[in-house]
């Protein structure tokens, strides 16, 4: 079985769908009536981008590139927590 060709076909299909999904998330972030909608869109966007980065790292055959995915998956959490702390408790750090 031609493993590289098969993976390239899979990647081509996945990349098109992922890009379309990114565009739709972006449209929701533009239209979102409240800030919470935008932050929800950022959440989905960053997790899906982390997944996409891992898949692209396999395609580029480079482990150096894939380490950014861990960071991206971690940081989206922080935006949620800070937003909640600001909305519910007022002061952020105390």
């Amino acid at each position, binding site marked *: 079985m031609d493993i590289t060709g098969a993976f390239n076909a899979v990647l081509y*299909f996945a990349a098109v769908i992922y890009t379309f999904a990114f565009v*739709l998330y972006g449209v929701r972030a533009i239209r979102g009536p409240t800030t919470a909608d935008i932050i929800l869109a950022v959440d989905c966007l960053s997790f899906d981008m982390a997944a996409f980065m891992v898949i692209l790292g396999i395609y580029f055959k480079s482990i150096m590139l*894939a380490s950014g995915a861990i960071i991206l*998956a971690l940081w989206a959490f922080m935006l949620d927590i800070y*937003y909640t702390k600001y909305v519910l408790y007022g002061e952020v750090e105390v």
Partner: protein
Amino acid sequence: MISEIIFITGSMAILIGAIYDLIAAIGLLRFPDFYMRTHAATVGTIGGATLPVFGAGLVALVYHPLGSQRFFMAGIAFTVGILILVIAPTGSHSIISAVYFGRIGKKPKLIVDQLEEDLPKRSDVAELVREHEELPAEEEEPKFTFRRV
């Protein structure tokens, strides 16, 4: 033989995950209010991110062009998957609590809302959370310190 089975399983996971992601994106765009959008968002994070990442890890295990780096790659993929599996529900939980208790946006029409009946007003939420958790007292000895300043 076994490597081909692993490769096909991983590829199927990636493809199904991509389709999940598209469904979640359409849902996030089309649903009318915030709480339904969070429903779509959970589909997007677990089905659209965790599943393809685990699939990519399986593919990386048997993808020969990567050489001996492929175990490192699979390790990164599984780490990202476990991280998303832990983080995404917590993030959704915290942001939904912010929207509910902070009364942001308009609420859908509900027949009965038991959470609202039980809980006090927005200004008391901080108070309530503080009461429910047992805080250490002020004069308690610190467990770990370098030196008293």
